[in-house]
Every structure is written in C-alpha cells, then in structure tokens.
C-alpha cells in the first residue's frame, strides 16, 4: 500500500497537550534540581561530581540532536549507505575525546571552559581566533536547533512554526536558568532514556513493516548510486564528517563543561559509552530515509523524511512517540548549548573585563551574569530563528572547516609543551580560510577535511620552526588566570 505523506500525522490538539506536558515537566525538574546549585561551581559544573550513569546519559542526549534525526536521513538520501555510515562516524568524536576528558579534568581541576584552557595555554594570540570560532559555532548551532524545533513540530502536528519554536526555546531557557548544569544533566538523563527507548521501538516497528530486501531492490532499480561502494561524493564525505565531529567535540565548551562536571576518572568511561550508544542512532535514522522511496513515500524535503516516515508508519501512538523523542532531543541539546555558552561568556569575556576594574568577583555576580547570558542567548536564538530562513541553518556548515582547524591546537596543547601561540593561531586561521575556500570551490563534504589537514600541516611546521616551552602547572594555577595588568603586559611582550 502506498502511503502518501501529505500532512501532519498528529492532531494539533495532541501536539499542544504533549508540548505543554513536557514543558511543565522539564521546567519543574529544573526548579527542583536548581535547589542544589548553591554556588557558581554548582550552577556551572554541577559541583564537579557527576557520576558514570548521568555522565553517559548526558553525553548521549546532548549528541542526539534534531540534526541526528533530520540530517542522517538526508545524508543517506544524498550519499547512500555510505552517507548513513559517514554520519555515524560522528561518534568517533566522543571516542577520541574520552581520554582527553580525563586529562583535562586532571590538568584543570578548577577549570570551567575550553576558552580558559586556550587562554592559559596560548595567551591572547590563540584566544582570539578560538573564541570567535567557538561563539560562531555555538550561536549557529543554537539557532539551527531552534529552527529545527519549530519546523519539526509543525510537520508532525501542525503547530505553527513561530509557536513551536518559541515554546522550545522558552522552556529550555527557563529550566537552564533555574537549575544550571544540575538541571541540564538531570533532564538529559531522562531525555536520553526516552530517546533511546523511542528509537528502539521505532527501529523494531519499522523492521516489522519494511523488508530490507525490498528496499535494496527498489534502490537498485531506481536510485542505484545510493548502493554504490565507490560513490565519489560519499567517499569524500566519510572522513570529512568524522573530522567535523572531532572539531565540534574537541573545541566546544558543551563537552569541556561536562568534562569538568564529571567526577575524576568518570569522563573517559562516560564519553566512550556515550559514543557507543550514539553510534547506531544515525544508522537507524538513515535507514528510514532509504526506506521511504521503497514505501512509495514521496520525498519533498529530505531533511524531514525520517520523522515523517516513522510517524506515518507507526500510527497515533508512534506519532506521539516520535514527537516526544524529537522534543527531547531538541531540549537536550539546546539546554547544553545555553549552559555552556553562558559559562563561556561569563568566564572568558565578562569576568576578565570586570577584573580590570574590580579586585574580586563574587559567586553571586557570576550567577547573575550567567542568568543574563542565558536569557540573552535565548532571545538572540529566538529572534534569528523567527524568520525561518533556511540559509541560516546552512550557515552551521560553514563552521565545519573552522572547528576542524581547532583540532590540532587542542590536542597539541593538551599533550605537548612545544606548541606555541603562533602555531595555534596560525593553524586556526589558515585552516579555517582554506577550508572555507574548499567549501565553496568543491562542496560541504570536503571543507572540514581540508580545514583540518591544512591546520595540521601548519601547526606541525610552526611547532618545529617556532617552538615554545609551556609548563602544564600553569593550567591549574589559580593566579595565572587572572594576572594583574602589569604582569599581563609582561606576558604579552614575552610571547610576542
């Protein structure tokens, strides 16, 4: 039977009820958990005592975003089986970050952000490009999540885009505001359970209704390149996507803040487990995309085919499940972005500026600035997402070469003393530029690869030609983060 996807599969009434229900749940939990955030440490990094279960859950929930359910079917439809596999290589970012998270936790036991690491490690020269890249990536990710939220809720239940998008953003802002990292990680735990159970049910139900042989036959007849082993664009995209994920995870404060929040020794296991749990998700979602043509479902917008296929095939309960899974995946990523980006703004922009005029900064001040940052980020995301311009979501792909260029300064700076600020800054700038040129000249599927490759060569050469000699003790020294102005000038002069 051919099923035509011509409209929402859930009534708006049901959609509004579910939205209201889960919104109240997340905000309520945020208020409840927020009582534990008595200090800035508690608010920003959950008291640095998160265990394995919560740590794994937050890694999984944060990495399962709307992109996972929207872009992996798109990859599969554009690039075939290799496309779905290419998307799943994003789990390698978590695998590779696992040992790094342990080292970060030990080297910076009182740290808060990735930018703080770069500032201590490379000084102002490395901080400027890194901060710009971090903010650009965080804001575009946040805006794309908000847009995806409105779009998906509209497609699944007919809730108008402005309403769905506004509710998603407001709910995430509220519970992050009340509960900080405690609320973020706590809700991530519940959201990850819902997401994983939901995906298992969807996968089982789809496989009972769709024959893999039939899908293969249909693809072979009508879309043969999707099954090709030597599909050129897919071969280029495989490592590109992996390196994009390396750059995203290595540089983003979303992951560094979790590394700081986890108890010592927990980070490596949590990230490794999280990667393992995440890995099959894009493969399942990608399969939905490939199954759509075989089911006779016309594909108009490939980025929405995954949720639509699942919801259409599973009936009312299935549609509800897909709705809830998507809402959870959006909320789990948006809250992480809000919390991590507000930490970055407070710790690396506001506090250093205020310290020039004031000797001490209290926890209360930092909590206040965090609140202002979270609300400000929410408003910015809402305002940018409201017009629903698709081009804004595509801007996120520009971040690929930029974050790819950050890989080498991070891992080189974390493990070796020789890399200097010049090597770090040059590699980020050159890698970003070359990657962006490749983006426009060739395509999105090589930009991160070129960015990372150029960055790596630059970083390696300059580390040999202009070596430094860094003392890792500076990373944990509380005084070196806030040097008096005279010492700061001395430091800058020496580095130059």
């Amino acid at each position, binding site marked *: *039977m051919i*099923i*035509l*996807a*011509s*409209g929402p*599969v859930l*009534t708006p009434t049901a959609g509004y*009820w579910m939205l209201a229900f889960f919104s109240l749940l997340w905000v309520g939990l945020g208020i409840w958990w927020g009582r534990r955030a008595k200090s800035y440490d508690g608010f920003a990094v959950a008291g640095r005592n998160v265990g*394995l279960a919560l740590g794994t859950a937050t890694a999984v929930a944060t990495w399962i975003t709307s992109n996972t359910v929207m872009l992996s079917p798109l990859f599969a*439809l*554009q690039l075939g089986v290799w496309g779905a596999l290419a998307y799943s290589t994003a789990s390698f970012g978590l695998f*590779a970050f696992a*040992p*790094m998270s342990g*080292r970060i936790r030990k*080297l910076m036991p009182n740290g808060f952000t990735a930018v703080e690491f770069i500032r201590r490690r490379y000084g102002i020269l490395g901080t400027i490009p890194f901060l710009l890249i971090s903010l650009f990536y965080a804001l575009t990710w946040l805006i794309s999540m908000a847009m995806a939220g409105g779009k998906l809720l509209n497609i699944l239940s007919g809730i108008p885009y402005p309403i769905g998008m506004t509710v998603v953003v407001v709910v995430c802002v509220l519970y992050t505001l009340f509960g900080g990292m405690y609320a973020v990680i706590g809700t991530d*735990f519940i959201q990850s*359970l819902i997401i994983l159970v939901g995906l298992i*049910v969807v996968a*089982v*139900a789809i496989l*009972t*209704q769709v024959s893999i042989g039939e899908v293969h036959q249909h*693809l072979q007849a009508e*879309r043969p*390149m999707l099954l090709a082993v*030597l*599909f050129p*664009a897919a071969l*280029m995209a495989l*490592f*590109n996507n*992996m*390196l994009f994920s*390396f750059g995203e995870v290595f540089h983003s404060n979303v992951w560094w803040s979790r590394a700081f929040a986890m108890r010592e020794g927990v980070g490596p296991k949590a990230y490794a487990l999280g990667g393992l749990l995440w890995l099959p998700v894009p493969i399942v979602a990608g399969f939905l995309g490939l199954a759509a043509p075989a089911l006779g479902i*016309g594909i*108009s917008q*490939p980025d929405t085919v995954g949720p639509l296929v699942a919801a*259409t095939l*599973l*009936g*009312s*309960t299935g549609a*509800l*499940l897909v709705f809830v899974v998507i809402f959870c995946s959006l909320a789990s990523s948006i809250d992480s972005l809000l919390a991590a980006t507000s930490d970055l703004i407070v710790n690396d922009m506001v506090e250093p500026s205020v310290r020039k005029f004031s000797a001490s900064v209290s926890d209360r001040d930092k909590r206040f600035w965090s609140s202002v940052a979270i609300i400000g980020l929410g408003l910015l995301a809402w305002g940018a997402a409201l017009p629903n311009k698709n081009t804004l979501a595509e801007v996120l792909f520009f971040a690929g070469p930029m974050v790819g260029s950050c890989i080498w300064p991070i*891992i080189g700076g*974390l*493990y070796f003393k020789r890399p200097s600020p010049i090597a770090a800054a040059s590699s980020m700038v050159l890698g970003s530029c070359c990657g962006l040129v490749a983006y426009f000249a060739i395509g999105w599927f090589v930009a991160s*690869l070129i960015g990372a490759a150029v960055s790596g060569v630059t970083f390696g050469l300059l580390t040999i030609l202009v070596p430094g000699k860094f*003392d*890792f003790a*500076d990373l*944990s*020294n509380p005084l*070196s983060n806030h040097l008096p102005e005279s*010492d700061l000038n*001395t*430091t800058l002069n*020496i580095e130059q």
Partner: protein
Amino acid sequence: MSSDRQATFAAVFTVKWLCYSVRWLSGTTPSGLPRITIVWMRFLVLLALSLSTLISASIFQARPVSAQGPSADNRSSETPSQVSDSLDSDSQDARKPAPLEFHKARFNIAREGYVSLSWDSLDTAGLDGAAGQDGGAIQYEVIDAAQRSHYRGAFPNAFISGLSDGQHSFQVIAYNEAQQVVARSNVPAELTVEHWSLRRALTLFFIGLAVFIAIIAVIVIGSWTSPIETTSTAPQVAEKT
C-alpha cells in the same frame, strides 16, 4: 475514548511512571551492594519494562496511517504513457491538461547525483472542473524519460537522488482524486549528472584517513609520553618562545 483523551491518559501515565522511576533509580542503597551496581540494575529493569510496554503498545497500535491526504490503494494501474494515451482520446470527462512549469528546468552539472525539483502548485479552483467533480486533492508524479516514477505526493517539490552519470530528463504530471491527468509539464527539467572523479575522491579519502590516524596517534603518544606533573604552587609567567 477519543484519540486525544487516549493520548492525554498515556502521557500522564508515562510521566508519573517516569517520575517514580527517577526517584527509584536514585534511591538509597540496600546494604551489601555498591550503589553503582544498584543504579545500573534498576536502569536495566526500567529499560526492559519501558521496552516491553512500548512494544506492546506499538504492536497494538502500529498500523499504517495515511496522513490527512488520501491513501492510494486505488493507485492507477495505468502507466503514465497509457494515461497520456487515454488523454488523446476524447472521453467525456477528460479535459486538456493545464501546463505545469518547473521553477527551474535547466541545472548545472550535478556532481553528487541529486536534484531538487519544484513547480507551481495547482489551484484546483482554477482548473475549471478538471480536478473532478468533487474538486479533490491533487497528487503529483515525477517521471523520467523511461517513464519510471521518481516521486508521487501532494507537495509541489521532489527530491531525486542516486542518479548515475548521464543525461536525465523529468516530467511532472498532476492527477485528481479520480486519477485523471489534470496537468503536466510541457518543458521537461533536464539535468546532467557527472560524478566527481574517483581519483579525486580516493585522494581525499586517503588524506582524511591519514589525518584521522595522525590525530589518534597524537592522542595515544601524548597520553603515554606526557604524564601529568604535580601542580606548582608559585605563580609563573609564560616563558619566552
């Protein structure tokens, strides 16, 4: 019970159960077992219960649901060429199909083998009854030169992918509820697919592999050769590079 009430009931029940589960998961540890063991045991039980409940619900509920659009059990068994032949004969209810126009009919060379086609949607009121007596919904079908169907749906856009090297030509046909052709494109959308050279693709593949191996090597070697030293208590200024 209406479907909305069912949904509300299910949601309330699920949330109550989730709240209880969260409290139960983080409850006190019975003597003799490590806390982490208890938490994981409870997690697995919870997962198993959730899975069994939802699978039961989905098996009971899972049935194909056609969205608000009509299901196509009665999809025309005629091929488009037969349909167009039938147009040539002057049946009493057939009207001359209105022209459909692609927004873009000529494309640059497609290197990845996919294309998005779009066209103006038909206003059924403007078809002077050609949509059928009940003025029902329009369904579009995109076919290629070999009359193979690449898209069938209610939206006036189609994403077509997995095309191999060569010239491809597409037409769009609009059907009413009675499966009569009410419109078709006069000017086909034409596309040349020329995939990236395998040499370039494999070169970039191996560059990516090399970068990946280098990153892993740096992490592994760094972990082995750069032990974490004890923290120095005296403030230090960064040395000259």
